[in-house]
């Protein structure tokens, strides 16, 4: 069967099929880089982490189990776990300042007050995120920005849903205090957050 699913591509990669592996890389790379940049702090670190994660994918392929088998993980869950763990491991090594971890600023100043204000908000959020404990930042990244369900995010982090909620509560409370002066009505060009009736 050649259905192009992650599972099928992993089976083909296990036989040394580099085309299948290439498709897997192309499919998952943008999201992996985005997640790793947010959790590890810099694009440079993120790119190294993602390279390492895909290298492990290539080496793991021969022992990959069909995701329909009991106890086996979906590829996305497994791969995200590898990326997140590499991010956290990397963060433990160097001592970096929140400014280092705030992400790269645009190389040239954007024109227009609104864009500048938006950029400032983004930088503030990233700096506040960088100051969070690693697992709180990972939990919030998976839950809020990546849109994972609580069950999926808990699975990636290897913790219970209750423990995930606890991480999220701590993260959001810290950010609410740190960013209290950023009232939403002062933030421009934002997508409207849906609120329940």
């Amino acid at each position: 069967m050649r259905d192009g699913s992650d599972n099928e591509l992993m089976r083909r990669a296990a036989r040394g099929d580099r085309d299948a592996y290439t498709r897997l890389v192309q499919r998952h790379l943008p999201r992996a880089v985005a997640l790793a940049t947010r959790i590890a702090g810099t694009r440079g670190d993120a790119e190294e982490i993602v390279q390492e994660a895909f290298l492990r994918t290539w080496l793991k392929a021969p022992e990959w189990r069909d995701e329909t088998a009991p106890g086996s993980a979906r590829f996305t869950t497994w791969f995200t776990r590898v990326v997140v763990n590499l991010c956290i491991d990397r963060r433990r090594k160097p001592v970096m300042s929140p400014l280092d971890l705030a992400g790269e600023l645009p190389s040239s100043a954007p024109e227009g007050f609104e864009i500048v204000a938006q950029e400032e908000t983004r930088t503030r959020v990233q700096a506040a995120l960088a100051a969070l404990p690693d697992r709180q930042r990972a939990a919030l990244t998976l839950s809020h920005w990546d849109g994972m369900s609580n069950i999926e995010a808990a699975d990636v982090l290897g913790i219970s849903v209750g423990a995930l909620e606890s991480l999220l509560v701590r993260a959001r409370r810290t950010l609410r205090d740190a960013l209290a002066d950023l009232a939403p009505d002062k933030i421009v060009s934002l997508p409207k957050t849906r609120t329940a009736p």
Partner: protein
Amino acid sequence: MITMSRLSELFDAYGADPDRWPLEDRTAALELMARSPEARTLARRAGDLDAVLDAAPLPVPSGAEADALAARIIEKVAAPQIIVLARNARAAWGWPNWTALAAAAVAGLIVGWSGLNIGAGYAASSDQPDPLAPAALEETLW
């Protein structure tokens, strides 16, 4: 049925967007919000933080950046040392070598029967972390 305390936890953990709440809580939480002004105040507060967080979307690489990085990764798996590692991994997980398995089984029987304790001193080796395992997450949560 859901309590105000649980609803407050949902806002604190997941924000104001019901799509992010656990499925099992969603319907009851929305019902409580519909009849409770206090719940709606909490929702607005959580929504304010959501809006601030949404101002910093995930930094997804451009198509050109992603293509360049993908090319580097694909090139890396063709490196000689990676080819050797991959070949070893495939051999380890490939079709079993029945002769070797049979020899190992016989050796195991002999060792077990003779009472030798070959594994003494190596018990900890089985506790070695899988390089792919979530080692970073094994310690206490907080």
